[in-house]
């Protein structure tokens, strides 16, 4: 009996069904808490024409940046991009389309999408270029714009610990967009550092309940750091 056991045996199983033209939401902030092995698997699969929803788009040679190398991404929805030369090049040549979205709006688009809320009003971006073509309303004298939520074919996330049932705990600020991404995928695939039997995680400490997770795999992570800043001992 499989029941609630979400574990899969390989990365190719983890992303089975992902095909050209699909939309993929990825958790992570910068290179922190990114599903680096699932991204690498997308590269191996060679699927193309993807729409990627993620706060950032990796760097040259790591994170979502690797999917630019074989031009697998057609469109990116993100709040901050361009930490990579290849991204810049493909953007300027028109191979890559970017939809810049305020970070809080992006987070809320995923949260709302996962919660079955198709759109919401927010003050963020009212009176700026972000509001172009969007419905505007005034509540209590303040301007708000209507933002549509996001759901996707696949969501890929990275957790710290999970039990077989896909209940996930994140570590430190590697949480970021991961719990939101988890809710918004039609198929949500989680990779984690450690998988434990059900009962070992304290129920009240679970960040992402297993109901949102369809497939689970344990990986080994490089965890690259973008800016190593330290103080002296």
């Amino acid at each position, binding site marked *: 009996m499989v029941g609630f056991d979400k574990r899969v045996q390989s990365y190719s199983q983890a992303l089975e069904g992902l095909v050209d033209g699909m939309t993929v939401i990825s958790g992570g*902030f910068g290179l922190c808490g990114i599903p680096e092995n699932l991204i690498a698997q997308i590269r191996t699969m060679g699927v193309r024409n993807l729409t990627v929803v993620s706060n950032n788009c990796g760097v040259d040679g790591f994170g979502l940046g690797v999917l630019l190398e074989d031009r697998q991404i057609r469109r990116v929805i993100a709040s901050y991009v361009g930490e990579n030369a290849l991204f810049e090049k493909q953007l300027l040549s028109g191979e890559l389309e970017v939809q810049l979205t305020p970070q809080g709006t992006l987070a809320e688009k995923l949260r709302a999408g996962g919660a079955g809320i198709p759109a919401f009003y927010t003050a963020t971006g*009212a009176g700026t270029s972000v509001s172009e073509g969007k419905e505007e309303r005034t509540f209590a004298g303040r301007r708000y714009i209507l933002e549509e939520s996001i759901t996707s074919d696949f969501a890929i996330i990275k957790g710290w610990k999970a039990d077989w049932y896909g209940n996930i705990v994140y570590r430190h600020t590697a949480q970021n967009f991961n719990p939101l991404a988890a809710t918004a995928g039609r198929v949500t695939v989680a990779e984690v550092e450690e998988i434990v039997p059900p009962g070992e995680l304290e129920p009240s400490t679970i960040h992402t309940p297993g109901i949102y997770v369809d497939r689970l795999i344990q990986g080994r992570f490089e965890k690259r*750091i973008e800016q190593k800043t330290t103080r002296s001992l």
Partner: protein
Amino acid sequence: MALTREQMAQRVARELRDGYYVNLGIGIPTLVANYVPQGIDVMLQSENGLLGMGPFPTPDALDADMINAGKQTVTARKGAAIFSSADSFAMIRGGHIDLTVLGAFEVDVFGNLASWMIPGKLVKGMGGAMDLVAGADNIIVLMTHASKSGESKLLPKCSLPLTGAGCVRRILTDLAYLEIEAQTFVLKERAPGVTVDFIKERTAGALRVSGTVPEMTF
């Protein structure tokens, strides 16, 4: 003399109050954390999901899972909380942050702020800046008074794409502390040794000066 970056941060730090939750933008605003007045406690919010940002880690404690919104490795202070990006922006949009300090390219007399995009240059994105200015009633803009070529950044109307509309009331530049009232910049304080005329020449938007304007002291 125009204020140094450190003096600008020092002046803004005097606006901190005990028990404030504060978001500091990248650049000079980050330096404000170094000048928190003695005897008060503030909690720094980092929009990637950290309330209670501490100093950089010692080299032996470097942790890829512990970063700030500038993607620098940091620590969490005692009493910190960590949460998702949605919770982080709920704090910001819900008006729970007591003070937001951020940089800008331009500000105008309507309180409009431009800080994220220069047409013709590569656009990297607004990150969390639009959320921060839309959610906060208490914003201080920290920037140089004029560009390197001497052009005023305090304008009758912003020329660059906006980050937020009608969101700014307080501005600290390297020359002055100003507030916006009735579509006018009101000169409240001068940098030490900087004359009112010098500030007037470098302020393109309407400027009101009433009485003697005190000099900042450091």
